[in-house]
């Protein structure tokens, strides 16, 4: 999943990076095929070159290795809102068939209070203002749901043309990379469709892990297994700095 997420950054110049899996993938891309990738974090760091995986969005390593450190209002207004960033890379708690995201709250059924999630953070405007959006998350029916309990962040809204109607810049989500495969929006319906399977994964398994009736592309591609170089780079990244993080 992480290797495929990193590969999805091929050709990207600038990436607004969410913490967790997106950050791991973006840093792996910078260590393998896209060494010039400019990493931008919402804490205000531009061009971070961390020597280890950052533990949070405000890790001092991101500031210490950056080309520039700017204020939070500046990063959102001058850099993100102005449309200077190619790719927004996000995680999510819930995703629907149109790539919309919920990170705010989940309905736990009648008589029970809603379950509280962390909230929006930077995601609504990252998804609205970047040239395109990548998502990476684990593939379960808890995460891939037929209907969001709350729309925190718009992907493709309710279908083609919705982004334009809302005045959102960019192509929106172009790929959702999971531990089972890759979903990409069908150009005609803007609905996430299974286009890639990881080696050894079946269509049935992906459909069983998806909360809606998942469309499957006519031609399914099997992703290339991680190369030794990619795995070595990932292991090195994960191992780096384990001691000095204590």
């Amino acid at each position: 999943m992480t290797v495929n997420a990193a590969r999805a950054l091929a050709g990207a110049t600038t990436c607004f990076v969410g913490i967790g899996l997106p950050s791991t993938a973006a840093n792996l891309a910078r260590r393998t095929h896209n060494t010039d990738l400019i990493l931008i974090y919402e804490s205000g760091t531009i061009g971070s070159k961390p020597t280890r995986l950052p533990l949070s969005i405000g890790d001092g390593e991101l500031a210490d290795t950056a080309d520039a450190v700017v204020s939070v209002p500046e990063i959102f207004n001058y850099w993100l809102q102005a449309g200077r960033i190619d790719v927004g890379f996000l995680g999510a708690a819930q995703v629907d068939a149109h790539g919309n995201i919920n990170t705010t709250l989940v309905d736990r059924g009648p008589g029970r209070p809603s379950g509280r999630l962390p909230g929006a953070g930077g995601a609504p405007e990252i998804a609205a203002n970047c040239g395109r959006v990548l998502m990476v998350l684990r593939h379960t029916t808890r995460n891939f749901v037929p209907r969001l309990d709350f729309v925190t962040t718009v992907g493709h809204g309710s279908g083609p043309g919705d982004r334009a109607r809302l005045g959102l810049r960019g192509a929106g989500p172009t790929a959702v990379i999971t531990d089972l495969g890759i979903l990409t929006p069908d150009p005609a319906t803007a609905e996430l469709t299974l286009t890639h399977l990881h080696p050894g994964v079946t269509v049935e398994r992906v459909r069983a892990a998806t909360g809606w009736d998942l469309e499957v592309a006519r031609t399914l591609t099997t992703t290339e297994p991680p190369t030794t170089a990619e795995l070595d780079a990932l292991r090195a990244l994960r191992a780096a700095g384990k001691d000095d993080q204590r």
Partner: protein
Amino acid sequence: MADIRTLHDAVAELVHDGDTVAMEGFTHLIPFAAAHEIIRQGITDLTLVRMTPDVIYDQLIGMGLVKKLVFSWGGNPGVGSLHRFRDAVENGWPRPLELDEHSHAGMANRYVAGASRLPFAVLRGYRGSDLATRTDTVASVTCPFTGEELAAVAALNPDVTVIHAQRADHEGNVQLWGLTGVQKEAALAASRVLVTVEEIVDRLDARPGAVVLPGWTIDAVARVPGGAHPSYASGYSVRDNDFYQAWDPISRDRDAFAAWMREHVLDRTAPAPDGGEPHGTPGEAEGALSQ
């Protein structure tokens, strides 16, 4: 010119029951010691404001001192949920918590409007998100020049902003650097400002990229070395990641939380500016937590 005060006196003077209080810091320079002093003084019915409420807001909420939270992302960074925050929202324990919820871009611009003494700020935000439907501090405005519809967010003007910084001089001019987050805007938006600092120096040496808040924009400065622990102060300390990990199990359980707060916050006195009671040094917290 800002007064140089002890932490106890500065908090007692500047923070009152019912105030709207912003304690900012984007992972870096979070004013933990000042917040602990607010907890010790039992200052209550607070409306807390912060883009990224984390462990210290979890503690204030869990102690029942907070009636409302204005925020954009609430979590334990790199670890997971804030359990006291969730308990308050989901179960009303120890008291119900009202929320005013935004995106980061919205919150940042609310502070910018507040610091500019404008009634609102404009951004291309919230489009299609349900967030705007649940708050009366987001509205839409039409651009008078292009006709474009944009989001308007109401200015945030806290009664008090509390921040932690690296240094001040004897006149109370404050210098901070590294990830400066939204601290400058939060301070300039507030009616009253308290800054805790790592050290007070005779002269503030220029540092490229540093933010300087002149003493006349600040009410009080208190010297509190380590006052950001378990977060960090670039150039002085590193983040105590073990503490953030350890907070997860402590905060999951109401009794474990109460016991921890008693031992580590309530039963202590405010750190003295010169030596005196150490304020939760990394080693100390680690030892206490591993028991």
